[in-house]
């Protein structure tokens, strides 16, 4: 527990609020939100410093680790680190080859980035829930003179819908871009309007267009939402359970947190994998010019 003075629900709320830096609507000054209410009022013009910081830091760890190995890559006997990274790369490569049947140099590196990055961000979930937030509180209180109840710090970027949706929407727009590039605007629009119901009769065809557009539009828009929210939901739920376990008395916590952490290892890897595979599948659909 963070502090004895908090009630259980306060503790949970505190843990589910991001460290938000944004424009205060009342005076128009950019500052760190002091309460969850403040953060909400800031609206769109705000940044979650903790999510952004951790996601960029973890992304840097990924890029640094892999590019160092890439620079030192030997064709002879690989060392332990190179071996591990080669296993990951071969794993991604074989998955992309299985799912993606076209040639695009972007897809495999993108899948690798998404998989490792999301995996690293998910792994933050295994760090004890109060460990880093307590350090952050200590720093906030002693360096910036903040109220300890106002220092919010979430360390798992994938429990922030902005992060997961940010990635899934990038994939969505990239898919639309490749779709139009490969099928032309006509092909893209045709895909949305002439399926799944079609007819030889021109009049019926025209009548069917709005129905098709509705169905295809929903399925098109559902893709990025389900893509992003699936990852967010799983990690958010996992984090939530860790927070609930942290409400137990100290001596009893391990009885639940250890089994849940062990189970969660599976969720972490699985969700990163699913995120990567879905991304490749959407990319593959964007490249499919074949007949429906």
């Amino acid at each position, binding site marked *: 527990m963070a502090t004895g003075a908090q009630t259980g629900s306060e503790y949970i709320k505190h843990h*589910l609020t*991001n460290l*938000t830096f*944004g424009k205060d609507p009342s005076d128009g000054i950019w500052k760190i939100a002091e309460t969850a209410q403040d*953060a*909400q009022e*800031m*609206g*769109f*013009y*705000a*940044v*979650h410093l903790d*999510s*952004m910081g951790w*996601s*960029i830091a973890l*992304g840097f760890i*990924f*890029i640094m680790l*892999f*590019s160092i*190995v*890439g*620079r030192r*890559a*030997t*064709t*002879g006997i*690989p060392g332990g680190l190179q071996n591990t*990274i*080669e296993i990951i*790369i*071969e794993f991604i*490569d074989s998955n992309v080859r299985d799912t993606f049947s076209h040639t695009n*140099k*972007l897809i*495999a*590196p*993108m899948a*690798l*980035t*998404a998989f490792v*990055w999301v995996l690293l961000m998910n792994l933050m979930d295994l760090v004890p829930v109060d460990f880093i937030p307590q350090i952050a509180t200590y720093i906030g209180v002693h360096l910036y003179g903040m109220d300890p109840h106002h220092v919010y710090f979430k360390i798992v*970027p994938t429990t*922030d*819908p*902005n*992060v997961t*949706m*940010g*990635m899934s*929407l*990038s994939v969505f727009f990239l898919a639309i871009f490749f779709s139009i590039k490969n099928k032309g605007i006509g092909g893209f629009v045709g895909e949305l309007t002439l399926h799944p119901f079609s007819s030889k009769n021109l009049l019926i065809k025209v009548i069917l267009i709005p129905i098709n557009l509705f169905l295809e539009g929903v399925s098109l828009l559902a893709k990025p939402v389900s893509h992003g929210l699936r990852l967010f939901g799983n990690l958010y739920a996992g984090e939530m359970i860790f927070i609930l376990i942290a409400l137990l008395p100290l001596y009893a916590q391990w009885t639940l947190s250890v089994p849940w952490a062990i189970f969660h290892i599976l969720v972490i890897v699985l969700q990163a994998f699913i995120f990567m595979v879905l991304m490749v599948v959407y990319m593959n659909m964007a490249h499919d010019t074949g007949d429906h």
Partner: protein
Amino acid sequence: MNINLTLIGQAISFAIFVLFCMKYVWPPITSALEERKKKIADGLSAAELGQQALEKAKVDVDSKLSEAKSEAKNIIAMAEKRQGDILDEANVKASEETSKKLKLAEQEVEQLSMRLKESLKKDLSKLVVEGAEMIMKKEIDKSTHDKAIQALVTKI
């Protein structure tokens, strides 16, 4: 839980990381993997070639060995023959030598016996002459007798 600029920030950083990965991570590692694959394939084929060469060498060794064995046999046989020859030769030489030596010894013995005979003859003839002289000292002229005796000696 608020949707805000973090969304766009994440999208931008995702794009940057993907581009970086595409440029500096993916190509070197995959090319290293590819190269290693080729290296291993090359190594395997080289090993197979080596195996074949080894087998060929084994066959070679066997044939050379048998050749050397037969040659050695020949040499031994020749040496044996040669040994026999040398022994024979030595035998012949030795027998020749002995016979020569024997001849020489015989000749010497003959000469010795001749000389002895001669000296014995001389002594005998002297004795005879002296005896005859003693007997017929007065009647017979010494010189005529000597002549007769000389004639006798040569006859013997």
